[in-house]
């Protein structure tokens, strides 16, 4: 297979390009660490390549893969003009030996600014040092943490949990010992001018930060000089947990990443696993997935709209009530479909977990009948509301170049005029069968983001309507018995089905050796799951790219030179969910 990216790299850097791997349509190019900066700059600037969006940076500890050298850092690049994806794999030189070794590589922050936080995270969790990084400190774990949890020689941790505590029993003497001292050193305050300016702390317990986000704000009067988000207060070790359980058992964890859009998270994860396995999903299931994911997009935008309106203008509290009322209608549909309101886990590898219930279509139609009226109410309440416009217009401007440089995706990028939506650019789950538009705006401020998201809601309604027409009847899950459980009645009649069932339940499926990076357009931006399989039933490396995490990095740029009160608007218009920021 000819590959333009590889051929051009090979022609320009014959010594630096060490190899190329193709797996299920994804290309991995291995590059020598010495030439990384030159190669990266070439990939970004060459007019035929233009990899202007750095999606992800993560490290891989290859200790148990038996590969040498032990550490490799990986760069997921995307070219927005040419809709092309490539992965750079950079094996790092071993430094020293034993557990203390910290491999080093050049930082790419000078080429893509988004690498700043991504490299800090890799340093924090994997222990790879990035030379030339402007601010290499831990980001998710406390500053005084010892060790790097994602290394393979770091135990997953945890402890036995007793469900009856007895104060006199010495077995419970350890209770309460797990609290650590609050770190006295706050790295984000280091370059702030605490004498000339006022430095204030916002969060982690603050009603307008949408969770446990902490912002250190440097003020000159009421003007923001700098605003440094500190994250990690909800760090839950998703990646480490995912690397200790079987593929299918991570599906419920996805729900808890971005917990207001669990259907979308499920879809992103199961599609990554399906690509790894090479499984085809039945058409009926694909359409059902589209309908449910778009319903989830509406539900997620309802949470955004309600909380944003309440934060920005306290008088629009009623709107939060309305928005949540309509979110409840969607949650009722989810509950009917899978039994849970929020944490759905409804998509399974190969299709849906159960067939859709008989009343599903009627319930969705009922929702479609009522919701457009409410949308008009929302727009009547907000679009020309003078308070709303005064708080949003011209606040938090982020141009398309800045957004792409910072890796910002989703409605923020589209509000800056860049019509980049994976549903159109790289259609998945039969999105190419649907007729819908990608709403954009040009003002690039918070008000433009509001308009884009409202327009997206209308498009979602269009997609759902078309989906209901296309849905039809059909199998809800693939009949590949190596992946999906056989139906119950088959088990009692067929010996083969019984064996498949037994194997799947006791061992799970085993994908071939390889690596994939599954991307999906979540309500907040591009959510991606990177999977590396070593041929066993447990993922060797599981990487989660949370759009909220990457988008949050833009807070500093967007809040600068604004007023202190505009920070609330900025954070609200980014639409973050801390479960996904901190993972």
């Amino acid at each position, binding site marked *: 297979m000819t590959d333009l990216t590889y051929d051009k790299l090979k022609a320009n850097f014959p010594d630096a390009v060490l190899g190329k791997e193709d797996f299920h349509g994804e290309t991995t190019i291995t590059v020598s660490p010495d030439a990384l900066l030159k190669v990266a700059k070439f990939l970004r600037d060459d007019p035929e390549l233009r990899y202007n969006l750095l999606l992800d940076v993560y490290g891989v500890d290859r200790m148990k893969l038996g590969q040498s050298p032990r550490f490799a850092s990986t760069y997921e690049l995307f070219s927005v003009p040419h809709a092309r994806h490539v992965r750079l794999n950079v094996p790092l030189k071993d430094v020293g030996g034993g557990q203390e070794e910290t491999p080093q590589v050049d930082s790419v922050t000078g080429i893509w600014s988004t690498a700043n936080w991504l490299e800090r995270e890799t340093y924090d969790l994997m222990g790879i040092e990035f030379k030339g990084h402007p601010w290499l400190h831990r980001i*998710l*774990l*406390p500053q005084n943490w010892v060790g790097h*949890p994602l290394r393979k020689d*770091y*135990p*997953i*941790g*945890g*402890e036995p*949990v007793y*469900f009856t*505590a007895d104060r006199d029993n010495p077995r419970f003497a350890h*209770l*309460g010992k*797990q*609290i*650590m*001292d*609050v770190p006295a050193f706050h790295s984000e305050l280091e370059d702030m001018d605490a004498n000339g300016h006022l430095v204030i702390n916002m969060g*982690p*317990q*603050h*009603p307008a930060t949408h*969770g*446990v986000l902490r912002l250190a704000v440097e003020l000159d009067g009421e003007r923001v000089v700098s605003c440094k988000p500190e994250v*990690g*207060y*909800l*760090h*839950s*070790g998703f990646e*480490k*947990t995912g690397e200790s359980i079987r593929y299918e058992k991570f599906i*419920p*964890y996805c*729900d*808890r990443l971005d*917990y*207001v859009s669990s259907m979308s998270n499920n879809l992103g994860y199961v599609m990554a696993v399906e690509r790894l396995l090479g499984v085809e999903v039945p058409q009926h299931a694909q359409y059902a997935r589209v309908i449910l994911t778009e319903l989830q997009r509406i539900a997620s935008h309802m*949470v955004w709209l309600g909380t944003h309106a309440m934060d920005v203008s306290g008088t629009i509290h009623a709107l*939060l*009530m309305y928005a*949540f*009322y309509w979110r*409840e209608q969607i949650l009722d549909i989810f509950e009917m479909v899978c039994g849970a*309101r*929020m*944490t759905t886990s409804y998509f399974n590898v190969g299709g849906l977990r159960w067939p859709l219930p008989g009343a599903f279509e009627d319930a969705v139609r009922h929702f479609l009948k009522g919701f457009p009226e409410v949308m008009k109410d929302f727009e009547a309440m907000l679009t020309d509301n003078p308070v709303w416009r005064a708080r949003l217009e011209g606040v938090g401007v982020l141009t398309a170049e800045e957004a792409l440089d910072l890796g910002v995706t989703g409605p923020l990028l589209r509000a800056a005029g860049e019509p980049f939506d994976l549903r159109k650019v790289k259609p998945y789950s039969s999105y190419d069968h649907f007729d819908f538009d990608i709403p954009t705006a040009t003002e690039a401020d918070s008000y433009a983001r509001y308009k884009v998201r409202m327009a997206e809601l209308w498009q979602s309604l269009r997609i759902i309507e078309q989906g209901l027409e296309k849905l039809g009847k059909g199998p809800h899950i693939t009949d590949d018995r190596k992946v999906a459980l056989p139906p119950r009645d088959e088990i009692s009649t067929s010996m083969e089905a019984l064996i498949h069932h037994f194997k799947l339940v006791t061992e799970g499926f085993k994908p071939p050796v390889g690596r994939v990076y599954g991307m999906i357009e979540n309500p907040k931006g591009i959510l991606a799951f990177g999977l590396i399989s070593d041929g066993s039933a447990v993922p060797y490396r599981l990487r989660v790219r949370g759009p909220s995490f990457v988008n949050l990095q833009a807070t500093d740029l967007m809040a600068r030179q604004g007023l202190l009160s505009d920070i609330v608007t900025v954070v609200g218009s980014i639409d973050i969910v*801390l*479960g996904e920021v*901190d993972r």
Partner: protein
Amino acid sequence: MGLVELNDFSITPAGGHQKDGAVGLVMANLSELVGWGRKYSLHPLLFGLACCAIEQISAGMSRFDISRFGAEVFRASPRQSDLIIISGRVSNKMAPVVRRLYDQMLEPKWVIAMGDCASCGGPFNNYAIVQGVDKIIPVDVYVPGCPPRPEALFYAILRLQQKVQKFGIGEREG
């Protein structure tokens, strides 16, 4: 007939005025009366951690309506609240903050551990998460569920009200 009869406490008006509902004279045990007042005016802290916090917000919205139980005034400052609902997983980085918030609340104060993560670590038995918020602060009511439905939170509040009723006006023990 008593004016209020719930669970194990009632206030019986003495004397007439049975028909117009006005209470002429009330005889009550002071500690029971204080408990009765407290249990219907819980002020939860406006504090959310993870998924359960979204269900906590849902509980406050019109469909479930937490104000039916007299606990709808969420206060943004710990110094004005007497109930903290730990709604989500508590990480090692967050644990000192949660402890400090609890310490800043004025007595008497109560804690609801909402959901599996706050109760026992839930699905996250790993290096990052404190295995149950009861390791750092005393918990009065545990709510199972991942996340619990708003109704489950209401049941916890009703159980907590029984506890508040019996609390008296003295110091918390231990």
